[in-house]
């Protein structure tokens, strides 16, 4: 089924068009973040570049410029009201702490557990693996009410540690499955050779096998980071003063008007770290998302 020249060109055009269509919302979103408020609400300036680009939106959300400074900068006070502060530096710091913390905790638990599940033979191994995976099927909403109560008693409500724990819980099943499939790719001969040489399980794990799955650990870490970074429901229920980015961004929509410029600026910022990470580990991530199901 070889393609003719014309078929090839048609395919190229179609492929670029389709990917372009999927990129358009992102492009337009980023564009909006550079628009002054007046241009966002002007139909004629919705898509094209006939507006004067401004960094005001970023100055407010990232540098904590005040409303007064903003009004002077843009010469426009449209939509004043609603949330009193738009400074989101603390939100970004909190989101980073939570995402990095959850990623670290997940890796700590999953990297160790997946090694045992890949290498040791015990009776309830498959059942145990299924049990871990079944956690992925549970809607977070099913446990949220008791978790709120528990966190209240444990003083974990509205804390970064609390969110780190629930994000870890959400990440664990995929992390274990992913790490297990990376370990399974390392031949057992490697372990046996080290064992004959007198190494203990812990030594084999730490000095021999773990260095061989470094790439897999990186991919798992990226996936965990993205999951925690984008998590919404748990953050909404469990926090009040500490806000992660996805929750924070929704607070800019108020009954008196939505600050779309700020929302777009913060939204664009929210997307950047994940973009960089995913482009770095693209190949392993495809493996991760297909859950190793391609192997027979």
């Amino acid at each position: 089924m070889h393609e003719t020249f014309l078929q090839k060109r048609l395919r190229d055009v179609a492929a670029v068009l389709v990917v372009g269509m999927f990129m358009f919302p992102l492009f337009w979103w980023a564009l909006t973040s550079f628009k002054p408020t007046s241009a966002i609400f002007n139909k004629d300036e919705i898509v094209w570049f006939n507006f004067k680009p401004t960094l005001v939106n970023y100055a407010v959300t990232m540098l904590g410029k005040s409303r007064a400074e903003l009004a002077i900068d843009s010469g426009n006070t449209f939509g004043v009201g609603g949330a009193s502060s738009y400074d989101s530096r603390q939100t970004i710091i909190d989101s980073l702490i939570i995402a990095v913390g959850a990623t670290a905790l997940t890796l700590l638990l999953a990297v160790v557990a997946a090694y045992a599940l890949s290498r040791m033979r015990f009776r309830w191994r498959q059942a145990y693996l299924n049990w871990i995976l079944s956690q992925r099927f549970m809607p977070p909403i099913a446990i949220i009410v008791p978790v709120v109560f528990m966190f209240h008693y444990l003083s974990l409500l509205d804390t970064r540690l609390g969110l780190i724990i629930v994000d870890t819980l959400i990440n664990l099943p995929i992390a274990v499955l992913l790490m297990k499939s990376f370990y399974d790719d390392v031949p057992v001969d490697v372990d046996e050779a080290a064992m004959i040489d007198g190494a203990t399980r812990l030594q084999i794990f730490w000095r021999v096998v773990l260095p061989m799955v470094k790439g897999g650990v990186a991919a798992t870490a990226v996936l965990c980071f993205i999951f925690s970074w984008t998590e919404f429901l748990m953050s909404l229920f469990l926090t009040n003063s500490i806000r992660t980015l996805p929750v924070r961004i929704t607070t800019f929509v108020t009954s008196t008007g939505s600050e779309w410029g700020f929302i777009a600026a913060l939204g664009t910022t929210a997307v950047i770290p994940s973009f960089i990470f995913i482009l770095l580990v693209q190949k392993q991530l495809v493996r991760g998302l297909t859950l190793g199901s391609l192997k027979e």
Partner: protein
Amino acid sequence: MVSQQVPSLAVDVPVSGTERRRVWPRFLTSEHPFPWLAPITALILAFGVYPLLYALWLTFFKRNPVTRLNVFNPTWNWGKLFADERVWGAIGHTYLYTISALLIELGLGLAIALLLDSDRRGYGLLRALMTLPLVVPPAVTGMMFLLMLDGSFGVLSTGLVSLGLWSPQHPILASSGSALAGVLLADIWQWTPFMVLIMLAGLRALPKEPFEAAAIDGATASQAFFRLTLPMLSRIIALAVLIRGVDLFRIYDYVKVMTDSGPGTSTETLTSYAGTIYFKNADFPYASTISLFTLLLVIVTSSIFIKLFKVRF
């Protein structure tokens, strides 16, 4: 300890000294999986299993809205659930949303995967770009489409209106007939790339020989697709549908951000209804009941699916 002989093999290996090995606690050197699995098990039991049982226990209590006390009444919430019309509406929306999203995302995903499955220059970049929507936080995607679908200045709405495809009197997200479709649009944009990724991985793993044989026998491209590609992909398609379906069933982010279950209750799903009961009524036992009912539906539906399509992990 002193009498213990070190096997001669161990002398010349890079295990840093037999001295250290001797002081380790015994369980660290044994073959038992317990120490490896204990931490993760403890975390899941404490913050996953225990809350689930607690939620179940909570459903047996009736909340008094005045005294704010919970009174033991094991059938109250479940009776209320089955008599609650909003629950049935939410179930309808949830299934409608899940099934239409699955069909559209799967169809589009497969088509785009076939389109991008080429080794020619530039296609690697296109495939990489295609994955980007996946990492946008769903809440941000919701906001993005909320702005684009805005009746008076949204780029998609104004585009549709100026093409004569949509009436400006009915803002997409503010009309009960189209709001769910608007939410679905955000979902499709975000998750079609997931299907593309999985299908691409599946397509790339296909053996070449059957296709060469078919080409020699004079099979057309569509014959090859329906007789070879699709059957060989069936297993991974079933798995993708299962994973995506479970996620879709608990849809929350887009609904909460874009329509907050409205207008009226036209985009209310099971998860968003539970959220409403929790935040607005503070009726925690009933919110738990709806949540557990959602879990029950997920389990039943996915079990039927697994049996029907013989999904293996």
